[in-house]
């Protein structure tokens, strides 16, 4: 089991999609929203995911496939 912290960014129609609910429902993962800001056109959520590593990978791949941007909590760590 593992805990992973990620930053999800939603744009446009994704804002109204219950993505975090679906992660908790369709994957063996406990989700915990720790910080968030949502506007009409863009929003972000810092999410803690508690579950098996492989299951977290699957859930985040599913979210990415929906068009949600998934970043590590540290953000862009590759610098020029």
């Amino acid at each position, binding site marked *: 089991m593992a805990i992973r*912290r990620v930053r999800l*960014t939603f744009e446009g129609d994704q804002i109204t999609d219950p993505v975090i609910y679906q992660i908790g429902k369709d994957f063996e993962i406990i989700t915990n929203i720790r*910080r968030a800001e949502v506007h009409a056109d863009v929003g972000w959520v810092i999410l803690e995911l508690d579950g098996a590593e492989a299951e977290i990978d699957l859930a985040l791949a599913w979210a990415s496939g929906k068009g949600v941007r998934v970043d*590590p909590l540290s*953000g862009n*760590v*590759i*610098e*020029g």
Partner: protein
Amino acid sequence: MAYASALHCRECGNEYPIAPIHVCEWCFGPLEITYDYDAIGDAISREKIKDGPLTMWRYADLLPVDGENAVDIGTGMTPLLKADNLGREFGIDNLWIKNDAVNPTYSFKDRVVSVAATKALEFGFDTLACASTGNLAGAVAAHGAKANMRTLVFIPSDLEHGKVVGAAIYGPTVVAVDGNYDDVNRLCSELADANESWAFVNINMRPYYSEGSKTLGYEVVEQLGWKAPDHAVVPIASGSLFTKIWKGMNEFAQLGLIDDVRTKMHGAQADGCSPVAQAFADEQLHVKPVVPDTIAKSLAIGNPADAYYTLKIAQQAEGSTVGSTPDPAIVEGIQMLAQTEGIFTETAGGVVISNLKKLAEAGRFQKGESVVAFITGNGLKTVEAVQHLANPVNINATVSSFEESIDVEATVGSKSASS
């Protein structure tokens, strides 16, 4: 002596003891250094700074490290040059270039890594690490060598060979990671989390690392005769450099070393990666992440961590802006700086110069106002962006061949006519 007394969360304000951590455990906001400014005020003076070393470590009292055992490879006190030729081209009568491309590894990253490496040793780390596509890799490798630390540099496997050499020469372990940007980024974040014995300069050392950028602000103020410039044009990647230059200048004012700062801050991005410029244009404080597509790769951060804080400064400091320019203008900017001032900058510098030109054309600078353009990296790092400009005239090894091929008078005349 270190005057850093604690860390605090930039969002919720929770305090933490000085430690190699970077996010608030309560709200996951970024951590920032808390200084004892009263004690610094008692210790610091213009005279003390002037008597200090001719490096960024003359400002050690304002950095979150002890400073007596600084990992110093001669970074800082880079030239602030009056740029009359370029100023004439743009119609700016008081233009200055802060040439940070002459640092030991040819970019401003030496400033942040010097602080991070020093702090890493103070914490007892023996391993220095980073993930980079260029400037940061060289800076970490060089400081790791100087500090006798084990050094790990993670790079994307498709990085140009010249950039790999620029880090590898210092002897780090260079790890080339297969995969796209997001894959490499995710791996490096996970490795940093899993290896708490590493000082990952821009992850667990980030609160200390980023403070090194303040020294650019201090130096410009000191070099201008203890006066903040009227305008500063600064490249934006994560936004950290922009916020720290602003912070540095305001710390000097807070400590009574200079008058109030009225600098108009101008952030510069490339059109191909301009989330902060777009948010500024939309009068927002949050960015819409982008997938970068620009030759200015050292600025190509699609979801900038410090965008919010950058935008707050840009909106609060009256007259400030954040703009962007297209890639051809960036190349033109590199050429203009080289051909007017003799300074060869990388693409990030081209972004600064092209945005400077745009600001001048928009009438942002009044007569007599001091304008400082921050050049943060050397042009030899991004030769591929301008290699199409190198078209030598081929001749045989005879005087007649030279005279047949080159009209020297015309060449001299054309240069005189353009100057």
